[in-house]
């Protein structure tokens, strides 16, 4: 993949991110942070490739740590965000 294409993708995605996220209301900023943090756990893809591909001791150790770290990030991040968001309720009592 060409470096220019990678950078193009990065710039456009960052622009989409700015557009979407500036409209998130302040009341949701904590779930936004934990939820977006869970998305940064996408590095799990790289961790899985590394852990599955390399047979050397260093590869095994690094692969295990990378997968563990990324999984903490992914599972914990999405779960705790869900826990928070289910608490946000509108005034519905009469």
């Amino acid at each position, binding site marked *: 993949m060409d470096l220019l294409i990678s950078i193009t993708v990065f710039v456009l995605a960052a622009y989409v991110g700015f557009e979407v996220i500036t409209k998130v209301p302040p009341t949701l900023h904590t779930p936004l942070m934990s939820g977006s943090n869970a998305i940064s756990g996408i*590095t799990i893809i790289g961790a899985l490739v590394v852990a599955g591909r390399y047979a050397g001791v260093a590869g095994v150790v690094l692969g295990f740590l990378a997968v563990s770290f990324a999984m903490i990030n992914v599972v914990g991040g999405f779960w705790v965000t869900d826990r928070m968001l289910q608490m946000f309720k509108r005034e519905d009592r009469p």
Partner: protein
Amino acid sequence: MNGGALIDPILAGYLYLLAAVLFIVGLKRLQSPATARRGNQIGGAGMLLAIVVTLIRYEILNPWVIVAGVVVGGGVGLWLARTVEMTAMPQLVAAFNGFGGGASALVAAAELIENQGNLDLRAGITVALTVLVGAVTLSGSFVAYAKLQGLIPGRPFGYPGQKVGDSVLALLIVALIVWLVISPNVLVMWVLLALSLFLGIVRVIQIGGADMPVVISLLNAFSGVAAALAGFVIQENALIISGALVGASGLILTNIMVKAMNRTLGHVLFAAFGGDGGGGPVGGEAKPVRSANSEDVAIALGYADSVIIVPGYGLAVAQAQHNLKELADMLEERGVEVRYGIHPVAGRMPGHMNVLLAEADVPYDKLFALDEIEDDFPHTDVALVVGANDVVNPSAREDPSSAIYGMPIMNVDLAKHAIVIKRSLSPGFAGIDNPLFYMDNTLMFFADAKRGISDIVNSMKEL
């Protein structure tokens, strides 16, 4: 690399793109509390898709390494997410940021170890930058975690000759990156990793506890940038797109926090500003304050028409959100209009107060941001300040010599009456006195937020 692949790499690429689109759709739904939960679930589905595609895409030589990592990491993450108290959310998010950054650094490190003979210039640069950003995120986040959890004091730590020491460290890191780019070398990479970890520690340890909203937001952006850089290393668009989204999100939040403190990012990162909010009283002559007991406060609140509650970090420390909700319910039963004014930097992370109040079942349509409520104080009967200090300091508006002059504040001093629940007259993290406490229309109720509010509730029952 695709010898044992179960699905076509082109198809895998499209599925990764679908996962990235799901992340964007999910984030878009965070624009309203009504759709936010579903949005987060859509994002989670995107992540599951990406993981499954990866598992069936490549021939896996070490399935047990993956199984062990998934079980250990998933288990720890699940346990943390299920057991954390809402008051401890800032340190949990800090820790998650750290793990994400650490994972990205490890991916880059493994790539270098396996391919060191045939890395081109572009690979060398991206590996070096991923190791740097990922490692700084890892160690910086855990220092922030330790400060927020109270494992180390929140005040800034410095050391003699710090400016010189920090500059030498920065130069060393730049030199190592150049070395790594020119001739990829495992030993140099490890030294770079170690120095980057050290950089994260010394940088964050010099930042005061109350500046943590900025630090956590910035580390959030870093964890995204680290993931995007890892995407450049393994040449995968899904990582680049997702990392860019998170980087943008973290930068926006950082900018909001910095503006709400009327500071610059450079000042937060390098000025070692303030303490941890537990400092002694400010010197000078003792000025008279109007001290109240719980009955005085109950009467003032109970016979008001409108009340705005302004919470701060003290509410979280005392875990008083449920008591506050009980008090607000009693007031509403008496016909008092109750709203909440949330300053952007109240608490230790963006939106911290909103999550605490949501936990106590306060409906989100009663929570108002600074710009939505700041003009309402002059026609409000009582502004009730619970565990906040600098964000209600009128010096920010009136005293050009004040360290916080120009910072946007909640104008509680303009309300007909202000009631401040606070343990003592000690200054906030900025270490400056608060004229609000000495004003004629201010009542000071000296108490821990939880005890104080439950005493007011008891007094209210007798009205």
